[in-house]
């Protein structure tokens, strides 16, 4: 049994098995639940790195469920694949690496964060199911399978957002709002799946991409899919759920929720690039995505400056940074039909946007973990009540400075690298967009200076006399993220050449995606 063929499915099956074993282990010992889930997620992380090395050297991998061999897509002369299929190319494994790192660090952070809570086995089970849902969204090659994993991730994340709802009312309200939003988006995705099935009788993404004709019904499906997936990713004007959901969830879950929103963003890019490609009018659709990005950037940062709750402020910044990703990839989409412009600045814009996805997950995760550390020791999230915490929580202060410098785009941290790529290439497309992006960056720096001053600087307050540093597992999670941020900031060229550029090329070239699944037909 050659295990290296089965790596794509083991990345999902091991956390799934662990998610179902956790309530059984809870009857024996309560502490073992956290250790089991951290162990399962570490195995997933190692397997994801192995798969990434294999994909970047050999090529995209395909895994068929229930066939007589893992890569037999078309048994005995069928014209399109009929079984459920995982197709992992460079873009999919890029998102998979983000998911693996973020959920592993979330589980490690939760080992000490949940000391005073009850029902911890359900928390770990739901965290593992959320990870399974995210991996499934990023690896799958079948549109109905994508809907199923999208719903798994949504239901698990709603239950985790309302986790503190037993004692307080606000998490329940945030969970209700998010559940209504994600139900509607998932049902509209299912409607679009129905439209595709009714026209072509195929459910496989690569096979539809080969036969798509961009009829009136396909335009309706595109018009349904783009706003609904942007709604799940938190773009303006559909961003209303983001501040409530991100601020009321426990801190490690907020970090994983950021990665889950980016998985929906990946699905949007996959549908627009690999399913439709140049059959549609890419200039129009590209400008629509650019407008979403501009609105998100500007409204996100202006709403963030006036906030008093630290996690709500960071959630508005998450909306704003999603705008950068939409702007970069939107510019790349708008020039997709124009080969000269694509070579000159289109590919660089998309590299900036996609590199920003990974950078954003790292530094926004670090910022949310530091906000969670402040909440864990002081019991409040209100910036007006906090003050002078740099005296007692030295490590948290250093990690916050690293995160804030990264999000504002200061060298030598990783935010600078991706933002520079976006500024330079978007300027050549339309100078006004680039100027708005730079103004937003300045406002981001301003709001984080405000947070640093309120929470950390100043004299030591009397009510926080016994506050000391957070436990070791939380410091470990924050330290790993800081090391990744500094490494990406010092050597961005290494990451762009080896990880980001293959991802961008696998999105642009639709023939590579369909050729892998259908065997070069």
């Amino acid at each position, binding site marked *: 049994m050659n295990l290296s063929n089965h790596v794509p499915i083991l990345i999902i099956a091991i956390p799934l098995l662990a998610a179902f074993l956790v309530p059984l282990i809870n009857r024996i010992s309560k502490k073992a639940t956290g250790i089991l889930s951290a162990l399962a997620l570490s195995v997933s992380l190692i397997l994801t790195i192995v798969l990434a090395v294999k994909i970047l050297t050999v090529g995209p991998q395909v895994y068929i469920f229930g066939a007589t061999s893992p890569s037999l897509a078309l048994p005995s002369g069928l014209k399109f694949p009929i079984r459920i299929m995982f197709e992992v190319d460079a873009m999919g494994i890029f998102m998979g690496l983000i998911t693996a790192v973020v959920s592993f660090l979330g589980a490690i952070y939760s080992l000490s964060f949940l000391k005073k809570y009850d029902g911890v086995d359900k928390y770990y089970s739901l965290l593992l199911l959320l990870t399974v849902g995210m991996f499934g969204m990023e690896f799958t090659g079948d549109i109905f399978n994508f809907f199923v994993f999208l719903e798994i991730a949504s*239901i698990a994340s709603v239950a985790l957002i309302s986790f503190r709802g037993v004692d307080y009312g606000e998490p329940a309200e945030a969970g209700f709002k998010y559940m209504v939003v994600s139900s*509607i988006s998932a*049902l509209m995705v299912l409607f679009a799946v129905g439209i595709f099935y009714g026209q072509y009788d195929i459910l496989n993404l690569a096979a539809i991409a080969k036969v798509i004709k961009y009829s009136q019904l396909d335009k309706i499906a595109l018009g349904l899919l783009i706003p609904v997936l942007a709604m799940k990713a938190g773009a303006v004007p559909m961003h209303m759920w983001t501040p409530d959901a991100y601020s009321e969830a426990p801190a490690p879950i907020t970090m994983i929720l950021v990665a889950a929103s980016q998985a929906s963003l990946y699905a949007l890019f996959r549908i627009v690039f690999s399913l439709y490609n140049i059959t549609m009018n890419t200039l129009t659709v590209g400008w629509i995505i650019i407008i979403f990005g501009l609105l998100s950037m500007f409204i996100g940062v202006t709403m963030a400056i006036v906030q008093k709750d630290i996690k709500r402020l960071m959630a508005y910044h998450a909306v704003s940074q999603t705008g950068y990703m939409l702007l970069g990839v939107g510019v790349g989409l708008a020039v997709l039909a124009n080969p000269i412009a694509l070579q000159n600045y289109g590919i660089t814009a998309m590299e900036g946007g996609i590199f920003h996805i990974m950078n954003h997950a790292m530094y926004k995760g670090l910022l949310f973990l530091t906000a969670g550390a402040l909440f864990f020791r002081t019991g409040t999230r209100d910036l007006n009540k906090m003050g002078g915490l740099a005296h007692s929580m030295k490590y948290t202060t250093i990690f916050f400075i690293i995160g804030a410098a990264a999000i504002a785009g200061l060298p030598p941290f990783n935010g600078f690298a991706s933002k520079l790529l976006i500024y330079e290439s978007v300027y050549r497309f339309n100078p006004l967009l680039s100027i708005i992006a730079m103004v937003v960056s300045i406002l981001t720096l301003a709001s984080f200076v405000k947070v640093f001053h309120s929470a950390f600087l100043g004299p030591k307050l009397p009510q926080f006399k016994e506050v000391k540093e957070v436990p070791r597992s939380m410091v470990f999670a924050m330290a790993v993220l800081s090391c990744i941020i500094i490494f990406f900031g010092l050597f961005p060229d290494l990451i762009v050449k080896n990880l980001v550029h293959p991802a961008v090329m696998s999105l642009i070239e639709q023939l590579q995606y369909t050729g892998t699944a259908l065997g070069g037909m």
Partner: protein
Amino acid sequence: MIGNLPYVAVVIFIGLGIYTLMFKKNLIKITIGIVLIENGVNLFLITLGYRKGAIAPIYTQAPSGQAMVLPTPQALTLTSIVIGIATTALILSIAMMIYKHYGTLDTDEVRRLRG
């Protein structure tokens, strides 16, 4: 004989569901709106598989010589119904938690998170 009537019913379901979701103020009525939209989408999926004058796609003791409707949309709809049950159970439990802490189910009063 049926014509386009099931598709008209799908549009009516989804339209009524969106109307209930936008204009009603009770949390339970919002849940009913979501259930209406989900029923509309399930009906759409089943209707896609219909072929004229065909019978159910089961081989066990079936009458011979007849065409059968497509079985794949039926599997898709079954999965969607199961997901709908999980969604409805979770949303109703969250509505119960909101009632426990706020004392009311009116969306004008459940507004502590603002700004």
